[in-house]
């Protein structure tokens, strides 16, 4: 019970009101209000309590215009997401204490509040409301990245996000129109009468925000264009809210398994060839979502636990990685692999924290990722989904490749681009500011804490579990995988970076598999990329030409909006009269 706040207040409201208030304060004031809001909201969440699955704590139900509202529904599944959203919001406030602009700081808290509200929403319309607020508040964070590119990316982001909301809305209305319950429960995608179009519409809306393949481009398009602070905020909420809604509405829907598998696999290639490290993280985020979607598709209790656990740890270590890259970008002015390197000398703390994040995402034992990821692969194994199992292992190796090694290696090690001996006049970037280090430190601590003592996490999971992460089999499988992946990376680095004369020494030995093999690999990658670019470019060109032709038609001086003369309009009126007269007479 918090003084002055009614007992059944929605925690989301506390955050959203505070977010709006923050507009009126300076840096320090914004930070303090943000922290107080997150703590108060978290305390309120704690006070509300939590019920087991199927027997949720419900608050504030009522009926308006024949529609039954249930703004707060707390069961284990919704609360674990609400908790992790709070922790992400807390980290965001600290991380952005010095660097977040006014728009970023206040919208970041509103955005976090909307994600909490969405996770706790018990009825469909409340969910839709928070769904839309999340879209509208987060676009400001993209825009705050600055520049025309950020504006355009933000516009594309906004349209896609709002479209998702409107599809959801249409789905809800149709669902209610056929007498469906207003409570947000499980939907049946494939019933006795074939595929249910209403459920498909809602799944599609969720799928847009969950970055299903081909619907995913908004993420890689917009997140890297936000500022360093903004990208950390963006990484936590939208996609995980979508994961929650999928887990709630579509657990055990078979189609999600192949979708999830494709999501884990295809971003690996793009992440490998990408130069912008924050874009690498965006692809990696996409890949991580694939694990969760796949688990939701499997739908057993272990799998749903795995999805929730993965979302939980993922938010922390992904935020940590984005924080590390955000710090690098702020201090060095870029996040491009080719322009970075050697930063460990002047940014030791950032380096250390980023490596913790990288080891977590790669699921090293004793780091948080390990605890959660093995649940999903084991769930796939238990259901005898061999192909899925293998694909997930392959994707895990890919994760290590691009997020676990590539990120820290190119940013902090590799070639030292800032060495004084280069005499290029680029000063060595300084260590990140204290607030950023504190946020990264807390996040790194959380990663290790969950890794060392998994019961903390297991106690929060939706279903009772007696799962043990640290069995000999799990550890051995994971270590083999990791060693194999590290080995592969070292080979690749050798080929990419060593000059020709060095390569010539072992030319005879491995030319036959190395050069054609690499060529083939590169050709495959380039082929996939070029097909993609053709398709995407074609779509982009098409939409661009549609917009520009609309512009010529409707823009100032366009045919459809030229200043019609009075006589012309009068003629139009007469024409309308004639049409009405004729139809009236003929009828």
């Amino acid at each position, binding site marked *: 019970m918090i003084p002055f706040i009614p007992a059944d207040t929605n925690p989301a409201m506390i955050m959203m009101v505070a977010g709006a208030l923050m*507009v009126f304060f300076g840096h320090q004031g914004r930070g303090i209000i943000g922290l107080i809001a997150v703590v108060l909201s978290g305390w309120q969440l704690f006070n509300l309590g939590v019920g087991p699955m199927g027997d949720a704590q419900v608050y504030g139900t009522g009926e*308006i*215009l024949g529609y039954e509202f249930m703004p707060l529904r707390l069961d284990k599944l919704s609360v674990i997401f609400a908790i992790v959203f709070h922790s992400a919001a807390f980290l965001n406030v600290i991380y952005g204490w010095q660097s977040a602009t006014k*728009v970023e700081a206040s919208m970041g808290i509103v955005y976090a509040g909307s994600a909490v509200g969405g996770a706790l929403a018990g009825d469909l319309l409340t969910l*839709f*409301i928070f769904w*839309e*607020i999340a879209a*509208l508040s987060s676009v*400001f964070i993209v*825009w*705050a990245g600055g520049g025309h590119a950020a*504006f355009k990316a*933000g*516009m594309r982001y*906004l*349209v896609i996000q*709002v*479209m998702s909301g*409107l599809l959801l*809305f*249409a789905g809800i*209305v*149709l669902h209610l*129109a056929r007498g469906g319950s207003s409570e947000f429960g499980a939907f049946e995608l494939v019933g006795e009468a074939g595929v249910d179009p209403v459920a498909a519409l809602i799944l599609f809306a969720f799928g847009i925000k969950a970055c299903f393949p081909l619907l995913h481009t908004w993420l890689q398009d917009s997140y890297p264009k936000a500022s360093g602070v903004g990208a950390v905020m963006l990484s936590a909420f939208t996609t995980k809210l979508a994961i929650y809604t999928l887990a709630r509405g579509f657990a055990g829907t078979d189609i999600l398994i192949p979708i999830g598998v494709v999501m884990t696999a295809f971003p690996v290639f793009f992440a490998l060839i990408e130069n912008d490290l924050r874009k690498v993280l965006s692809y990696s985020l996409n890949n991580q979502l694939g694990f969760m979607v796949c688990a939701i598709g499997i739908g057993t209790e272990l799998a749903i636990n795995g999805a929730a656990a993965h979302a939980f740890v993922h938010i922390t270590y992904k935020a940590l990685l984005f924080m590390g890259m955000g710090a690098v970008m702020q201090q060095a002015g870029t996040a491009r692999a080719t322009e970075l390197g050697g930063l460990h000398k002047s940014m030791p703390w950032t380096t250390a924290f980023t490596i913790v994040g990288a080891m977590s995402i790669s699921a090293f034992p004793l780091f948080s990722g390990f605890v959660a990821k093995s649940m999903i692969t084991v769930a796939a194994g238990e259901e005898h989904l061999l192909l899925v199992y293998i694909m997930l292992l392959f994707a895990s190796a890919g994760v290590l490749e691009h997020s676990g090694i590539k990120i820290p290696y190119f940013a902090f090690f590799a070639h030292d681009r800032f060495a004084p001996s280069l005499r290029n006049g680029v000063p060595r970037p300084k260590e990140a500011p204290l607030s950023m280090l504190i946020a990264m430190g807390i996040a790194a601590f959380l990663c290790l804490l969950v890794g060392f003592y998994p019961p903390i996490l297991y106690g929060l999971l939706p279903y009772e579990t007696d799962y043990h992460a640290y069995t000999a089999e799990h550890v051995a499988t994971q270590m083999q995988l990791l060693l194999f992946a590290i080995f592969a990376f070292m080979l690749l680095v050798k080929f990419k970076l060593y000059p020709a004369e060095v390569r010539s020494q072992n030319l005879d030995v491995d030319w036959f598999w190395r050069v054609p093999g690499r060529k083939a690999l590169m050709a495959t990658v380039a082929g996939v990329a070029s097909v993609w670019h053709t398709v995407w470019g074609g779509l982009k060109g098409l939409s661009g030409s549609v917009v520009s032709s*609309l*512009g010529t038609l*409707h*823009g*100032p001086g*366009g045919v*459809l*909006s030229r*200043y*019609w003369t*009075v006589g012309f*309009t*009068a003629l*139009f*009126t007469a024409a*309308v*009269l004639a049409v*009405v*007269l004729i*139809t*009236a*007479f003929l*009828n």
Partner: protein
Amino acid sequence: MILDDLPVLPVIIPLFAAPICLLLPNTRLAGSFATLIAWVSFAFAAMLLATVAEVGPIEYGLGGWANPLGIVYRVDLAGAIVMTLVSLLASVVFPYAIESARDEIVPSQTSAFFAMFLICFSGLMGVVATGDAFNVFVFLEISSLSTYTLVALGAKRDRRALTAAFTYLVLGTIGATFFVIGLGLLYQVTGTLNMTDLHDRLQGADNKVIRAGYAFIFTGLGLKLAMFPMHRWLPAAYTYAPSAVTAFLASTSTKVAIYAMLRFLFTIFGFSFGFADIAFGFFLVLGLVGMFYASTVAIFREDVKMILAYSSVAQIGYMLLGISFATVDGVGAALVHVFQHAVMKTTLFMAVGAVFFALGSHRLSAYKGLGKTMPVTTGVFLIGGLSLVGVPLTGGFISKWVLVQAAFGSVQAIPSLLIVLMIVASSLLAVAYVGRIAWTMLLEEPTSRTPRKVPLAMMAPMLLMAAVTIYFGIDAEGLVNICRAAAESLLDTGLGYGGAM
């Protein structure tokens, strides 16, 4: 005693106050006087609404002449709601106009300006209150003629106001002429102009003259309410009129024309005519086309007032759509949107007026970085803009929600789902044009000019309307219910004893 005269008081008080206002000095006194009159009218209109909600339609014979000799005023629930709405907006816009007009009107015309404002107000109220078809024409012309003048007064700041007013004059007169021709034809057939009698005598009758009369009235009122493609007078008139005038007109004049259209369609003609379906078909198609066409044009405009004016044409499309369903839910949804749109558009145009006061321009380029230099006005504008898009917790969401519900509850030539998807798609267009302005205000760097401080007399009404926008987005049950009841009275038990439902 005074309560017996309730139906006529809100109409004649501003009418008689106008000449007095003209005699007042060209100071703030004229505006204050007009404001007082608006408040008095609003008080009477609210009392009227309360009475009508309680005892049902009220009839009042003007000058003591009983029906059918005299002119009869007859106010039912739908009428009382629109009268309350119009007088409410007048009482909010008039105080705003005091400061705004000092800036935008030639000082020597101040008292004339407010006199015209009062006449316009009176005309709009009269259209709603009267139960006499010809009287509708008279009041429509009273309001229109004063509006032409009001638009032309914008010429101090932009000479294009003169051509805009002239265009409006010519087209408005064409509309009025069509309307009065239609009335003449009906009179020819029935020998009466009283709405109730018209209804009785037209019941079951059907011949070419009536049909022609119907077509003329439909077209004439269609022009007055800016139905696509007869909307062309609206954008220029709204853009170049003084800010306060735009804020008032955008929220009232087309709404009153829609009310008149509802009256003629449902009360006078009723459903018994075979060609009622044609009218609904026209509304459906023209409403949908108007929604898309006007929203698309709005996206590519560089003038914020022009963007909002085109948006008004698009929003009228939503109302026509609701009417075209020809169900209680549909007409109710249209009335809800009439109310919500009036509130949000007044909010928006007041914010635009405040920016114009501060920076002297309503072009988009003047809005750069306003979030930093004029945060309150920006906030108000954003609230209005979100409502325009139909974001939850704003009024616009409520009206879209009931409209979508009504669409599913009715049978149309076009499948309901398609209509709903089109509503959704046109909301996306609104996202684009509102988003463009929001981006300019929030994320572009401010220009070097420092804005003038906007006086409290302008800020207070603006903030009030923003609060109303939010309030009716959260607690709209009363509004929806009363609009539904009004729709029922229009379709079923209004002036025309059960419109053959």
